[in-house]
């Protein structure tokens, strides 16, 4: 680490004093740590970073940082971030939340944010369950998971493939990691922030309270172990993602496509606009 970096903010400087409401052992702690490490690695001034979220355990994250945060309503974090980035392209805009927030109630916005390809980084902490509302199935829950009182026979529905969907919808940076691999998550988030376009970071983040079996994830996750990744080939990325079983981690897809930018141009001013109304 350079001298300059040592004098700048360290990971802990990006954390607030507020104690998270999360259960002991919740995967979301690892993501918080990784995020602050990534920001420190990039030496971003905290006031230049905005962290936007919706509702859920994961979505509580902004208050636990010392960034400008917006804790909005369930499912609409990407919209708030889109407006902010369009109006303030100078800011580094991050979005974080859970799988329910991002893929169920906010699913439509996820598709359109990928397609719009604004320079935003979206981190989803996926625990395949609704933690905050005490353990219902989410879009990424397996069809035969029967532990929720709301769907006693399981959902019977094929689970959602967020990373593949992101590629299909037009995101230009897609990666997966596991909250237990804090350094890898930090590296991926740092790269995602540097990527000039919409970056989707899918982090497996166990909910030990409602999905205790996810404790096993730390033994089950593996690297993709392919030297053709990351790829700029969407078809290859999709093929890998649809066949890997969902527990491989690493950067999968990176593609350069111009990010959406406001077309703002300065013209003749308000007087000229008003002149158009003259009889």
């Amino acid at each position, binding site marked *: 680490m350079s001298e300059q970096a040592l004098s700048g903010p360290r990971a802990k400087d990006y954390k607030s004093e507020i104690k998270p409401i999360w259960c002991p052992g919740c995967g979301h702690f690892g993501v918080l740590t990784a995020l602050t490490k990534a920001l420190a690695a990039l030496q971003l001034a905290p006031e230049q970073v905005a962290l936007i979220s919706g509702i859920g355990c994961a979505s509580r994250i902004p208050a636990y940082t010392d960034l400008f945060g917006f804790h*909005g309503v369930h499912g609409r974090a990407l919209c708030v971030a889109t407006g902010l980035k369009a*109006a303030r392209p100078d800011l580094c805009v991050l979005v974080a939340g859970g799988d329910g927030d991002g893929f169920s109630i906010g699913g439509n916005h996820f598709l359109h944010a990928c397609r719009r390809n604004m320079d935003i980084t979206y981190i989803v902490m996926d625990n395949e369950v609704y933690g905050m509302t005490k353990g219902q199935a989410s879009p990424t829950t397996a069809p035969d998971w029967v532990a929720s009182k709301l769907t006693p026979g399981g959902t019977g529905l094929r689970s959602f493939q967020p990373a593949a969907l992101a590629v299909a919808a037009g995101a230009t940076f897609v990666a997966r990691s596991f909250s237990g691999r804090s350094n890898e998550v930090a590296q991926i988030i740092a790269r995602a922030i540097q990527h000039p376009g919409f970056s989707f970071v899918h982090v497996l983040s166990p909910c030990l309270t409602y999905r205790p079996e996810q404790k096993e994830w730390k033994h089950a996750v593996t690297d993709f172990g392919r030297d053709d990744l990351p790829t700029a080939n969407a078809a290859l990325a999709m093929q890998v993602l649809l066949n890997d079983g969902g527990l491989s981690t690493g950067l999968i897809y990176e593609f350069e496509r111009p990010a959406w930018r406001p077309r703002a141009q300065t013209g003749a001013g308000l007087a000229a606009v008003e002149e158009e109304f*003259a*009889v």
Partner: protein
Amino acid sequence: MRSLSLALVGSGGAGVVTAGGLLLAAAARTGSYAMMRRSSGPQIRGGESAALLRFADQAVECADDSFDLLLACDWRNVDRFVDEIPLGAHSLVLYDPAAGEVPALIADCGPRLLAVPLADVAASVHHGRINMVALGVIAHMLQLDASLLASVITDTLAHKGHAAVAASHAAVAAGRELGRRLAVDATGSELRLPATAATDAARWTMTGNEACGLGALRGEVRFVAAYPITPASELLEWLAPRIEALGGTLLQAEDELASVNMIMGASFGGVASLTATSGPGLALMMEGLGLAVASETPVVVVNVMRGGPSTGIPTKSEQTDLNIALYGMHGEAPHIVLAPLSIGDGVLATQWAVHLAESLQTAVIVLSDQLLGQSRAVLDRPADVSFMRRRRVAGSAAAAYQRYVLTADGVSPMAIPGSSGMAYTADGLEHDQAGIPSTRARDHAEQLAKRERKLAEADYGPHWGEVSGDGSTAVITWGSCTGAAREAVQRLRASGNRARLIALRLLSPLPAARVAEALSGVERLLVVEQSHSAQFYRYLRSQMDLPARTDILARAGPVPIAPGEISARLQAGS
């Protein structure tokens, strides 16, 4: 007021709205005030449409009780719009026999009828169109200066190319000749543009949607996100290139859930932001607006009302989103509801909305409607207004910054991303003064009271409404009904009866003390609104005492409330 009302009807492709627009522009250049309403059916193309014009020697803000002239290019779907074109024995109907007999619905009103072979004449002109022949007939009747109309046609249709402009000139000339031949102006009625006194004041022509768009720009809105919906789309389409020319951005969102949250994001970033929609979109925005209130993020929604509920009557007007605008949010979410009182007032109402949202850090809903939004008026240039107070921004904090700190007026300085040491998290969860989520009774009580206080104690100044006239009889109304109510009161006064008009631009928080003052000495009150269930009357009743003799004129859309309806009710009771 002297005025002349005429209706041009035809099936969608006939171009009656184009002809009406040309007539409006030409009349404007002669110094006439004017208003043109559009009535169209559900079809995207090819349905019936009508251009409903009224010219006057004073600013005109509503339709008259009946039409002096109806010119029909054809009678397709006449049953759909006949209610909107009241006729009487004084009316003259020009029709083309080639398009069939005059329907009984029209003939039964007893107007004078005159056949004009529009289609035949149009066919005799190279690329001649019926609407232009009709325009020529009317120009002859109104004795509209030929070179003035010609220059309007050249200017307006230039984008269609030389050939189209030449064909239009030829068809208009043929129409004038037809009018002369049939002596349409010698049918007993004197149809002339009302002369206006010469004035130095600048005249503008604009729709209510454009007026609201301009108000947004005057208010320094520089970010708009929206999803298309009738009848608000034109407001957005007008804004799109112009906000960009001023260095701002308009973004087409994937839906209204997105648009309301996008404008919150931009506003959180320090940029004044607005969206526009209509009833179905407003319904989708309600959760987001509650967040704007709780997180104290300034936003403005211009809601251009249409017939409801559900998809309702998208192309026609009603004032029935008052309830959702007032009460649509869950929890207790004090916010502001405004309404423009005329087409041109869209400028002030929207600019004021931006100012109130910004300075009070809350959500403001502006209730325009299809009647205001899609009608075009020739009016005096709306006055420049400047509001001094803007958003209270936190520069730097000596101690730890508290975003929701309790202040005397309830407004807390807002830090903007980019200011060092001022980070905070905006939150829709109830919070303490620092913005930290809290379920404590005391924090909830304090923050509820703070959000209420900043609105209740704000000084709304002179713009809360308009009061005119005197006497012990009064009409109280809001939004687009104001024009008809004003004219009703003027007519009454012209016939020697005194009456007052009270029109509310600020609906919520209700300026009850001001209204009570305006009502002092009033013994008889008529509440006028375009809704079936008397939403406005019930709202007033819930907030304040009204005179013992209070009557209601509440009628659903889409036919606008006419001045004669109001004056008849006022006279019936006296």
